[in-house]
């Protein structure tokens, strides 16, 4: 019962923030930023695996959000909206990367950031590093859907962010999990190779 009230309260506050943003009220954007910047940052950092790239996309995401805030509809959900912008920025950057030979060369040379935090140590550095390599070897489409699922989005919300149907999301998620498992298994059985980053 209390939980229901809390959910209603959170939704009511979100509706109020959407209204304030769409009317361009001062302070509303700062509120949105303080509420959600950490999750957008973690999504982009995990999606790209690179701090410099994530910083660029983080900036582009928030600048686009600032431009589009006045077009928010009363029924808009803020977090999926921000994730959609972030995901589209990443997609668009990947497309341009095809033409940017210098950046591509740098990406091939620079190693991915290794898991060094306490959680990774608990899990076992070896296992964490293997999992991380397998994750970054997946195509972009699989990484996106896995990360959105990790972020706690359910299939309808993921569908909204990715612009897909719910059943397509479920299929893609299932395929991504299988790909991840297969990659981990092939890493475990074969010699350790440098991760080859794919783009879908």
């Amino acid at each position, binding site marked *: 019962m209390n939980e229901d009230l809390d959910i209603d309260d959170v939704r009511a506050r979100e509706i109020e923030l959407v209204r304030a943003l769409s009317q361009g009220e001062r302070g509303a954007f700062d509120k949105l930023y303080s509420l959600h910047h950490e999750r957008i940052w973690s999504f982009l950092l995990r999606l790209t695996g690179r701090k410099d790239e994530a910083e660029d996309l983080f*900036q582009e995401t*928030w600048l686009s959000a600032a431009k589009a805030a006045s077009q928010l509809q009363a029924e808009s959900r803020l977090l999926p909206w921000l994730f959609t912008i972030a995901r589209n920025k990443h997609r668009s950057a990947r497309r341009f990367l095809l033409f940017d030979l210098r950046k591509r060369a740098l990406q091939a040379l620079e190693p991915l950031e290794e898991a060094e935090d306490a959680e990774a140590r608990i899990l076992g550095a070896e296992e964490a590093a293997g999992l991380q390599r397998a994750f970054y070897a997946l195509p972009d489409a699989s990484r996106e859907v896995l990360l959105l699922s990790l972020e706690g989005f359910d299939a309808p919300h993921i569908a909204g962010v990715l612009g897909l149907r719910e059943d397509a999301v479920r299929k893609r998620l299932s395929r991504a*999990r299988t790909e991840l498992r297969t990659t981990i298994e092939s890493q475990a059985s074969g010699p350790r190779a440098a991760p080859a980053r794919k783009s879908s």
Partner: protein
Amino acid sequence: MTEQEDVNVSERSLNEALPVTPIDPSVRMRVQRKARGIYEGEKTAIEWSWQDRLVPITLLLAGFMYGIGAFERLIAIFG
């Protein structure tokens, strides 16, 4: 272990394996300031002072005068 439990375990492991370092505070603040500026309709166009305008206008005027031969006539008159 059921398939759902298996999925939960592997997602938890993945969650732990993917590091999230906090955003650099200077980047966080810079992005917030820029985005707030756009949201609040801050002018992003370059604002020109009269001194800034003076140089291109002078160059254009000089080019025009040279084009119509004004300098040659002035030299013929006063030179």
